[in-house]
C-alpha cells in the first residue's frame, strides 16, 4: 500500500467526532406567530365579504389552534433546553455549582413528566432565586395558555355551561379581542375565543413568561 492508498483508506474509515444539537424552540415561536398572522389576515379579508367557503373557516381554526398549541410547546421546549444546557455545562449566567444543581435534577424531572410551569419554578428554587408570583402576569398568562392548550388537546364535548367551558371563559374573557367571525350568539369557548386575538395573546403570553423567567434566573434571554 503506497502513501496515497493509505491516505484514502484513512479517509474512508475514519469517523468525525462531531455532534449536532438541534433546538426547535425558536421555530415553534416563529410558527406560532406566523399562524396568528394568518388567522388575522383571514379575519381582515372575510370581514369585508361573507365567508367564501368552508375551507377558509377551517384554515382560520387551524391557524388559531396551531398558534396556541405551538406557543405552549415552545414554552416546554425552552425549559427542557435550559436544563439540558446545564447538563452540558453550557448555560451562561450560572456558575458551575448552579448548573450542576439543574443538571442533577433534570433526570428526576424528565422521568416524572412534570408540568411545564413546575419545571420553570423548580429551576428558580434550585439556584436560590425567587419564584415568579403565581397570581400575577406573566405566570398567570402562561398558566392560562397551558390550560387552554390542555382544553384543546384533550377536548371533551360538553354543554356550554359545563365546567371546562366555564373555567376557560372565566380565565380568558376580556384578555383579547374575540373572534370576529363568530356571531355573538355562538359559544364563547371555543367559537368566540378562537380568533387571531387569542392566537396573538398566546404567543405574547409565552414570550413574556420566557423572558421574565430568563431574567429571574439570571441567564441571557432566549427569544
Amino acid at each position, binding site marked *: 500500500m503506497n502513501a496515497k492508498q493509505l491516505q484514502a483508506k484513512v479517509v474512508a474509515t475514519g469517523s468525525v467526532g462531531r455532534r449536532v444539537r438541534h433546538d426547535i424552540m425558536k421555530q415553534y415561536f416563529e410558527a406560532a406567530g406566523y399562524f396568528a398572522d394568518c388567522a388575522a389576515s383571514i379575519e381582515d379579508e372575510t370581514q369585508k365579504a361573507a365567508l367564501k367557503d368552508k375551507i377558509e373557516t377551517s384554515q382560520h381554526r387551524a391557524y388559531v389552534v396551531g398558534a396556541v398549541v405551538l406557543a405552549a410547546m415552545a414554552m*416546554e421546549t425552552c425549559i427542557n433546553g435550559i436544563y439540558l444546557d446545564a447538563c452540558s455545562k453550557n448555560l451562561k449566567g450560572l456558575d458551575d*455549582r448552579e448548573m*450542576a*444543581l439543574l443538571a*442533577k*435534577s433534570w433526570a*428526576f*424531572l424528565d422521568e*416524572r*413528566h*412534570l*408540568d*411545564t410551569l*413546575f419545571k420553570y*419554578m*423548580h429551576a428558580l*428554587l*434550585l439556584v*436560590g432565586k425567587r419564584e415568579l408570583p403565581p397570581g400575577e402576569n406573566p405566570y398567570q398568562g402562561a398558566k392560562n395558555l397551558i390550560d387552554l392548550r*390542555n382544553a384543546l*388537546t*384533550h377536548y371533551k364535548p360538553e354543554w356550554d355551561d359545563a365546567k371546562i367551558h366555564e373555567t376557560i371563559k372565566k380565565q380568558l374573557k376580556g384578555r383579547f379581542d374575540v373572534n370576529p367571525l363568530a356571531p355573538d350568539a355562538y359559544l364563547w369557548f371555543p367559537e368566540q375565543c378562537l380568533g387571531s386575538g387569542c392566537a396573538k395573546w398566546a404567543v405574547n403570553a409565552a414570550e413574556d413568561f420566557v423572558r421574565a423567567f430568563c431574567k429571574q434566573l439570571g441567564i441571557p434571554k432566549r427569544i
Partner: protein
Amino acid sequence: MEVPPGWLKLAHQTLDEEILENFLAQNLERAGAVREER
C-alpha cells in the same frame, strides 16, 4: 407551605442526588404539581 430552606442549603453544599430528589418531592408536594397532560 414553604420548602424547608435546610434542604436547599444541603443540596447546594453536597450536590447529593438523593437530597435533590427529596427536595423535588418536597417542592412537588408544596406546589401540588401534576404530570403534564399529553
